[in-house]
């Protein structure tokens, strides 16, 4: 019986697991987090732009998730809910980094690093960095959600608490920025 129970767990939906976890089911919580961890980490990387920051952010989220989970009512997809928690945590880290008056690692500090270090070796990462740091936080967060290939515009709108039209507008803004950047590079 126990084996069957566990097998069923693997097929149980995120939402069911999350509700069970919110009601105190330790096992459900473990299965759910294990299932969602990798996606969460990758999102954290796309949000922050550095491995170290992504690890810290993921840790923040894991530590706080049990408390936060109590509010999961199943009115949204668990993934949407989780990504919203992640985006809020990323905002919080950014603000704390800013209040420490110290440049955080990641997209934000790249401009500074670039001046200090003109290494051509990581040209590809460099292009990515310059592309991402050319965008403001809103646009970057939006892309971080969309480029994971999991969320539709409507999902991302849900996560960020804005309208779908805003997401579409941000995407076109981001494209505009990237094209400008491409033109500048070609011009050089």
């Amino acid at each position, binding site marked *: 019986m126990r084996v069957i129970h566990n097998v069923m767990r693997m097929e149980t939906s995120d939402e069911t697991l999350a509700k069970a*976890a919110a*009601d*105190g089911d*330790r096992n459900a*919580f473990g299965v759910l*987090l294990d299932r969602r*961890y*990798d996606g969460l*980490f*990758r999102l954290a*990387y*796309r949000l922050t732009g550095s491995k170290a920051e992504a*690890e*810290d952010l*993921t*840790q*923040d989220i*894991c*530590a*706080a*998730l*049990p*408390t936060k*989970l*109590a*509010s999961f*009512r199943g009115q949204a997809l668990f993934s949407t809910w989780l990504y*919203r928690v992640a985006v*809020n*945590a990323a*905002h*919080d880290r950014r*603000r*704390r*980094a*800013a*209040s*420490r*008056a110290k440049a955080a690692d990641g997209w934000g500090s790249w401009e500074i690093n670039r001046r200090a270090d003109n290494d051509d070796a990581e040209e*590809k*990462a460099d*292009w*990515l960095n310059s*592309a*991402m740091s050319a965008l*403001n*936080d809103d646009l970057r967060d939006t*892309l971080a959600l969309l*480029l994971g290939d999991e969320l539709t515009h409507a999902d991302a709108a849900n996560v*960020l*608490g*804005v309208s779908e039209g*805003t997401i579409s*507008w*941000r*995407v076109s803004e981001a*494209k505009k920025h*990237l*094209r400008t950047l*491409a033109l500048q590079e070609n011009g050089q």
Partner: protein
Amino acid sequence: MTDPLDQLKKALDTTTPAPDKDMKAANIRLAQKNFDQIQGSAQHARPTSENRSNLARLLTGVSGMIDALTSRGGIVATTAIVAVGLIIVTPQGRSLFTPPVNFTDQEEPIGSLPSQPKPDLSQENLPEREDVGKLAKSSDAPSRRDLRKQEAPMMEEPMIMAEEVAESDDVFVSGAIAPAPMSLDSNLSRNRQHIVAPSEPASIRSETNTETFANAPSNPLKITVEDPVSTFSIDVDTAAYAVVRSSLNAGTLPPAQAVRVEEMINYFPYDYVAPDAGVTPFRPTVTILDTPWNADTQLVHIALQGQMPALDTRPPLNIVFLIDTSGSMQDANKLPLLKQSFRLMLGQLRPEDKVAIVTYAGSAGQVLEPTPASERSTILAALEHLEAGGSTAGQQGLQQAYSVAENMADDGDVTRVILATDGDFNVGISAPGALKEFIAQKRDSGTYLSVLGFGRGNLDDTTMQALAQNGNGQAAYIDTLNEAQKVLVDQLSGALFPIANDVKIQVEFNPATIAEYRLIGYETRTLNREDFNNDKVDAGEIGAGHSVTAIYEITPVGSDAVLNDPLRYQTEKSVATSADELGFLRLRYKSPGASISQLIQTPIFTDMAPISTDAQFSVAMAGFGQLLRGSNYVADWSWGEAIALATQARGADDFGYRAEAINLMRLAQSLSVE
């Protein structure tokens, strides 16, 4: 061209590292541990799950409502309710996409929930935070924001901590969560956790760090036939210029939001024609110039020059310094600079003036009793002893400062609280509406408030603006000792002695001569047309010797620069005024202490005062500000032309302010090429 997003996605996919296995295991263990602890502490918390979810729903509803009250939006509402109209009509439509902040609706909940018990978030987080300090990596030491939160439960007044609640929506703690204290009613503690957790999306925040800037989209072009009247309040603040300078000197272009063009212009002392003694406190001079950035338009340059009363007979002055001594103030450009600045200022005071010092968020309360300025060494010693650090004390900082100020005031004295901070406005009142009301009420009882900002990174320009505007004071940003010299020594009398209150400007343009117009800057100071004659509506103050400049760009009828086509179905309105009048200027002001305003009015002719170098320099600064904001209206104008104009109009420039501005323009030129 390939879709740039595909390219970006590929690059992202290749650089995204795989999750570290050990990290993953450790993080999941941590999560499980916290999970168990919460379950343990909440075991008795839920008689039935039904009961819990009802309560939770109720509480999250309240939290969602408070959530919408970010302090930023709320405080902007105190001064910029009218800006909402502008946001909607902006031609670029850009602001349609800024976070929807409904200014006008926000004051309602604040007022209607004064006795709502504030959700007490930090109480139960306290033990966790202590753990964080020990457990977390050193870079995660509790930030000042966390410390601020800890102060919340000690608030005496039952006020809704809008900011705290909004922020705590995403309080994240690295490390283990300690069990909730058993002494707490566990039912209550369980419910609190619901408030902490985000059940609804938190309000979307656009700021990248904790700096916020008060601004609104550039004023749009108005068509004279449709909308001939423009009304706004004057603005003598200078903070925007100093912030721009600090950004440029740090090698970055300032955020466009930080640039308030009118403050760029009004930063500089101008020597406009002063009023004759005893007639009016200030005198308007109107000049018509050609627009440097558009050959087909002209500028209407309105300059107000305040008189410089004989300072020998000035009334005694009572100053209460309210100083932020929180931990972040210890940077060299904050508290140490503040001490030096005040020492400079002390030299300007007279023996009969009195000084008191109150601190908040650090060493507690009143650190200097009201002391005559003649006892210089006592005051200096108290200043020297100020130290940044500590977390919680002096909750009632602002109230205390005002009560000290009120006790100091004798009849005829000028009393002012000067708040010096790097952006932590935890002055004892947190609800934006209540703070605004408190300051406005004190203003009406004769105690004014000025705000000095120090340091960058945490600067809350929005709040600075709101407080100073409501307090009939100036907001200045002190980035260097030179700036302290300018604000607190050279122009001290202007900052401390108002000569005209609630100064409003209204211009009616003549549709027979002017097709289109726009006001440059003053976006945060726009007033409704009917506000002009309403003496209850607050506006800006002119201090002794202040000069204020407002510039309209106008497009004459028939000019090539007219941007709007005539309407097909509207017949041209008949205009009966004489064709050489461009418009009509009305000014309203109140003498200090008076509650009834006085009116100054004059027609604007095509042929007005001769063009002074001061006027030209102010136009160059208007161009500088618009270039920094990336305004479409100056798209054809180059930095080189702006610099040439400023250089040519530099004039005597006794203190080198204008030379400095030209250097900043050159810096901005280089930075914008990058």
